[in-house]
């Protein structure tokens, strides 16, 4: 939100100069405030940094995805393959929403479902000022 103080009429003399200066100061203050709200409260990552931060988040939950794999292996000992997922990283909150597995996934459906379920509730910290539209892939292998 940018506030512009435009209530003071322009008059001649030193009072006018004083009012002009005050107005400019108010505008600059608003600009600085707006920029601060953007760059200090929330990160505004570039695409590469956003990808890396999101990958790091997913890698930090590797044990959860390994548990998914272990569970599937009990029923299907030779299960393996990839799970490609897309999801949204909400701006401001950093929460991952609407994860879904993509058709190019080759892993068993149970594994795909477990991965998708595991993505729900994860949150990027600190969040980003922009919404992220991510596509990531997991590769599940034995040995």
């Amino acid at each position, binding site marked *: 939100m940018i506030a512009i103080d435009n209530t003071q009429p322009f008059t*001649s003399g030193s009072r006018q100069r004083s009012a*002009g200066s005050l*107005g400019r100061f108010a505008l600059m203050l608003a600009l600085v405030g707006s920029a601060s709200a953007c760059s200090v409260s929330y990160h505004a990552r570039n695409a590469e940094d956003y990808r890396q931060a999101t990958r790091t988040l997913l890698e930090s939950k590797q044990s959860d995805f390994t548990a998914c794999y272990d569970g599937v292996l009990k029923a299907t000992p030779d299960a393996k393959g990839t799970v490609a997922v897309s999801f949204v990283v909400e701006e401001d909150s950093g929460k991952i929403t609407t994860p879904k597995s993509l058709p190019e996934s080759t892993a068993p459906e149970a594994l795909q479902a477990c991965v998708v379920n595991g993505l729900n509730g994860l949150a990027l910290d600190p969040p980003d000022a922009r*919404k*992220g539209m991510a596509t990531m892939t997991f590769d599940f292998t034995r040995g």
Partner: protein
Amino acid sequence: MKRQLESYITTTNVTLCLALATALACGGTTTFQDTTPIRIAVAPPAPPPAPPAPEKQVKIRDNRIELGQKIQFAYNKAEILQASFALMDELAKVMQENPQVQKVSIEGHASDEGEEQHNLVLSKARAEAVRAYLVGKGVSAERLSSTGYGETKPLVSNDSDAGREQNRRVEFHITKQEVTKEKVEVDPTTGKEKVIEKTSANEEAAR
């Protein structure tokens, strides 16, 4: 006054543009795709446990070699059936692994079914078939002899099928072997056995 107003308007426009740019930087969507998959690897499955070693069918006991199964022959013939080949192979292996067993007498026996003379001939032929098989598997011919006793040495009564089946057999008697005798003492402190005397001698049994 005019200049001052123009200056103010210019400053305002620039500031608004900057504010708009900043606001735009805060919103919008960043699309990104990770090209390197996140690898989730688990340990390979443990190899299946090794199947238990098959129970040994051939055992050396004092002056005999005992078989856990009977050697099977074709009906009324001195032909070893394929079903007994594994047993015969194991017997040959035991003979080769135990050179202290120097001589073995292979003895064929029959039940009382059929002609006595025929049974005698058949039991001899079967014993010889066993000997030939073992020689064919690499056991020295000098270590083996064969004979047949027909129906003269039954183990049990021939009154039943089970009895007759039991009497039809081939036996392996060790007639000469090197016997190693060990005198052992138990160490009172460790509880372990300790060989204090070891002697070897040839024992020959008359058959």
